[in-house]
C-alpha cells in the first residue's frame, strides 16, 4: 500500500525515513496491508457519502451565494502516544490558565501592562477590546474561556508547537465526534489491536463545565441555552450537535427577549428565564444596543442583563483581545508572568513588524517567511514565502510598509505530514491539530482533537474553507498498544 510513499525531508507522523512504520503505527500499518485496493476505494466512498447524508456540512460563501459542502474525510488517523498526549494536556492547561488570568487582568487592573510586559497599545488598539462594555465585571468563576480550540503543529523535529489560540467561538468539535463515528462505522477492523482513549462521556464534562457558570444569585436548576446565528451559519452543524449532546435548547436571537434586565426565551407556554448562554455569535453582533446597531442576530439589552449579573455569557465578551496573532507572541511571557513557569508547549517564533529592526529583517527575507494579517483567520490575507511569486511578495511588501502593526511574520515551519488516502493512492499531506479545552471549575482537555489535513498535494493550508479535510485522532490509552 505504502510502498512508494516518500516521507521526504518533513517529519512524518506515521513513517520513518527508511519507509517503515513508526512503532506506534505498526499495528495500523499491518491492518491496512490486509485491505485490497477495491476495499479501500469503496470504504472511502462510503465514508464521504455518510457525511453528506447526515447533513454534516459547512457553507462556503462566494459571489454566487452559499454552497453546502462536506469536509473531506481521510481515514488514516493521527495516532498520538499516551506520553506525548500527557505533555500536550499539561501544556494546554497551563496555557489556558495564563490566558484566562490575562483576560481577567486586561478587564480589571492591567497589572501586566503596568509591569511593562505587554505594550498598552496592543490592548487599546485591538478592535476586540471592549473596555467600555465589560471592564470591571465579576463574572462567574472569573472564567472567560469556557471552550477553547488551540491549534498545534509539529515542526521538522516532531516537536509540538502552538500555532494559534481560538478563544472566541472555536468550531469543529462536532467533527471530532463525527470523524470517530464514521471511522467506527466504515473501518471497524482498523480499531482491532488498538486501545484508544474513548470520546464517550465527554459531554458530561462539557455540560458540567457549562452549568458551573451559573450566576451567583440564581437559585435552583439553571437554564442553559446555545445561541446560534441560525442555519445559514457555516458552523450550524457544530451548534446543533453541541446543543443536542448537552441537552440544552438551541436558540436564535429572535427566540430571546430581555425584560427588566432578565433574559427570557419565548416558548409555547410564554417566557422562560435563561441563566447561561453559550453563544456562538461574535461579540459585535450580540446586542445591537451595546455593539453594532445593525445586528439582526443579537438580543437587545443582553449586555445590560450580563452586567447586572443576571445571565452568564460564554465564552466571555472581549476575549478577542487575547487571541489575535499579535498578542499570540506574548503568551509565553504571560505564562512566565502569571504562573512563574516556562511554557510546556512552545510558540512558533514570531516577528513583530511594528519593531523597525524586525521589520527590516522580514522585508529582506520575505521568500523564507510566512506573513499573516493579525486580524484575519481561515488562511486569508496570508503570504507563504517559499510558495509565493515575486508579484505576490511585492503586494505584501507594500501592505506591510503601509500598516506594519497589522502583520506578523513567522519562519516557514516544515509542518509535519501524514499519509492521506485520496483518489486511490497514499501521499503525504501536511496536518495540524486543533485541541479543545473545556474550562469550568476544573480544566478538561478533550482527548485527541480535530486533525486537519491539507489534501491538495503540497498545500500548507488546512482550513476547510480552502480544501482542507479532517482525520480521526487517536490517543493511545496508557500502556500503549494492545497486542492481545
Amino acid at each position, binding site marked *: 500500500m505504502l510502498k512508494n510513499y516518500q516521507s521526504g525531508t518533513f517529519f512524518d507522523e506515521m513513517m520513518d525515513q527508511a519507509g517503515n512504520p513508526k512503532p506506534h503505527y505498526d499495528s495500523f500499518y499491518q491492518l491496512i496491508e490486509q485491505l485490497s485496493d477495491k476495499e479501500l476505494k469503496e470504504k472511502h466512498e462510503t465514508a464521504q457519502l455518510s457525511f453528506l447524508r447526515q447533513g454534516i456540512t459547512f457553507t462556503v460563501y462566494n459571489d454566487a451565494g452559499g454552497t453546502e459542502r462536506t469536509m473531506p474525510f481521510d481515514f488514516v488517523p493521527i495516532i498520538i502516544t499516551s506520553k506525548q498526549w500527557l505533555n500536550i494536556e499539561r501544556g494546554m492547561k497551563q496555557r489556558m490558565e495564563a490566558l484566562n488570568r490575562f483576560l481577567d487582568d486586561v478587564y480589571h487592573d492591567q497589572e501586566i501592562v503596568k509591569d511593562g510586559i505587554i505594550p498598552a497599545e496592543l490592548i487599546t488598539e485591538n478592535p476586540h477590546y471592549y473596555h467600555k462594555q465589560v471592564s470591571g465585571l465579576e463574572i462567574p468563576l472569573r472564567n472567560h474561556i469556557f471552550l477553547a480550540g488551540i491549534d498545534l503543529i509539529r515542526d521538522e523535529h516532531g516537536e509540538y508547537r502552538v500555532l494559534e489560540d481560538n478563544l472566541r467561538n472555536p468550531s469543529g468539535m462536532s467533527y471530532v465526534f463525527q470523524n470517530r463515528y464514521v471511522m467506527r462505522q466504515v473501518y471497524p477492523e482498523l480499531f482491532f489491536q488498538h486501545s484508544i482513549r474513548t470520546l464517550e462521556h465527554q459531554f458530561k464534562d462539557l455540560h458540567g463545565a457549562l452549568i458551573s457558570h451559573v450566576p451567583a444569585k440564581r437559585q435552583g436548576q439553571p437554564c442553559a441555552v446555545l445561541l446560534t446565528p441560525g442555519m445559514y451559519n457555516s458552523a450550524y452543524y457544530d451548534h*446543533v450537535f453541541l446543543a443536542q449532546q448537552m441537552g440544552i435548547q438551541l436558540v436564535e436571537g*429572535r*427566540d430571546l427577549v430581555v425584560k427588566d434586565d432578565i433574559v427570557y426565551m*419565548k416558548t*409555547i407556554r*410564554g417566557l422562560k428565564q435563561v441563566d447561561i448562554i453559550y453563544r456562538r455569535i461574535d461579540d459585535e453582533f450580540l446586542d445591537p444596543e451595546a455593539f453594532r446597531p445593525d445586528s439582526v442576530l443579537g438580543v437587545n439589552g443582553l449586555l445590560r442583563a450580563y452586567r447586572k449579573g443576571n445571565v452568564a455569557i460564554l465564552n466571555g465578551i472581549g476575549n478577542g483581545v487575547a487571541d489575535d496573532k499579535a498578542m499570540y507572541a506574548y503568551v509565553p511571557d504571560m505564562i512566565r508572568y502569571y504562573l512563574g513557569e516556562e511554557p510546556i508547549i512552545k510558540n512558533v517564533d514570531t516577528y513583530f513588524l511594528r519593531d523597525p529592526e524586525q521589520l527590516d529583517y522580514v522585508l529582506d527575507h520575505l521568500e523564507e517567511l510566512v506573513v499573516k494579517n493579525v486580524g484575519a483567520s481561515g488562511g486569508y490575507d496570508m503570504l507563504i514565502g517559499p510558495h509565493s511569486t515575486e508579484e505576490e511578495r511585492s503586494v505584501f511588501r507594500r501592505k506591510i510598509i503601509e500598516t506594519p502593526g497589522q502583520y506578523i511574520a513567522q519562519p516557514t515551519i516544515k509542518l509535519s505530514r501524514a499519509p492521506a488516502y485520496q483518489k486511490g493512492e497514499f501521499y503525504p499531506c501536511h496536518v495540524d491539530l486543533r485541541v479543545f479545552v473545556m474550562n469550568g471549575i476544573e480544566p478538561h482537555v478533550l482527548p485527541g482533537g480535530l486533525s486537519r489535513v491539507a489534501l491538495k498535494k503540497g498545500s500548507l493550508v488546512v482550513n476547510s474553507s480552502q480544501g482542507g479535510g479532517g482525520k480521526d485522532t487517536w490517543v493511545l490509552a496508557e500502556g500503549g498498544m494492545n497486542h492481545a
Partner: protein
Amino acid sequence: MLSRVADSLYWMARNIERAENNARILSTQLIQMLETSDQDVMHRDWEEILEICASKEEYYERYARLNRDTVIHHITWSPANINSLQNNIVFARENAKATRDHIPDELWQLINQFYLDKQAEQDQPMTPQTTQEQLKDIILMSMTAQGIIESTMTRGIPYTFIKVGKWIERAEKTARLLNVICEKTLKEKYNTASENYYYWLTALQIVNGYDSYIKENPPTMNPKDVLTFLIENKDFPRSIRYCVDHILQAVHNLESGRISHYSEELFQILAGIQEEIGRTDIANMGMEELMNFLDNFQDNCHRISRVFSQTYYLVEPVHSSH
C-alpha cells in the same frame, strides 16, 4: 419548547403532508388521463388539478395557456410555485434542519437524503414515466417519515406539533378537494352517470380511500355516500371528522385537559366544528347546501391554523406557504 421550534415542526409536517397529497393527486390524474380521449374534458380536468394543488389564478398570471406539461412542471419542480413539490421538499428540509435537535436523526437523514437525491435527478428529462416514479418516491418518503415519527418519537410536545400540522393539512386538503369536485359536478348540468362515477372515484383515489370505501359501500359511487365517507367517517384517517377529532384530542392532551384563557378560543373553534359535523346530515343536503358547508369548513380550517399559531406564539415560519 421554543415557539420557533414548535412552529418549524408544525410546518415541516405540513409540507411533508402537502407533498404527499399533491403527489398522489397528480399521480392519479396522470393515470386517469390515459383513459380520457376528449380534449375538452382533459383541459378542464387540469384546471381542477391546479385548483386543488396550487392556484389557478397564479398559474394564469404566469402562463397564457393550459398545457399539460407546463401544469405538471408547475406542480412538481417549478421554483416559482410556492406550493410545488420541489418547494414542499425544500421547506420540509429547512424546517427539519432548524429542529434537528428535536426530531429523530433518522427523520432528518431521510428528508435530507431525499432532497439530495431529487437535486441530483433535476437534470433528467421528464417523461410521464419518470414523473410517475418521482411522485411515487415522494409518497413513499412521506409514509416512511410517518413511520419513523410513529415508531421512535416520544408522545410529547414535539410529536404533538408534528401531528397537528399533519391533520390540519389533511383536513384542509380534503375539504378543498371536495369543494372543487362538487363545483365541477354542479357546473356540468349534462353529466352522465359514468362521468359522475369517474369524479367521485377520483376523489377517493386522491385521498387513498378507495379500498376503505369499497369495504363499507357499494361500488356505485353515489356522491352522497362518498361525501359522507370523506366528511363524517370517524375511522378513515383522511376524513374531515377524523382529523378534527384528533386535533382536538391532541390539544386536549397538550393542555392536560384544562381549558385556560389562552387556549379557550382554540377549543371553541375545534368543538364548534366537531359539533357542526355531527349535526350535519349530508345524505339529505342539496349540492348547493353542501357547497356552502364545505366553503365554511375550509374557512374554519384556516381559522384553526391561525388560532393554533396564536395560542402557542408560533412565529413567522422559516418559509410559510399560506
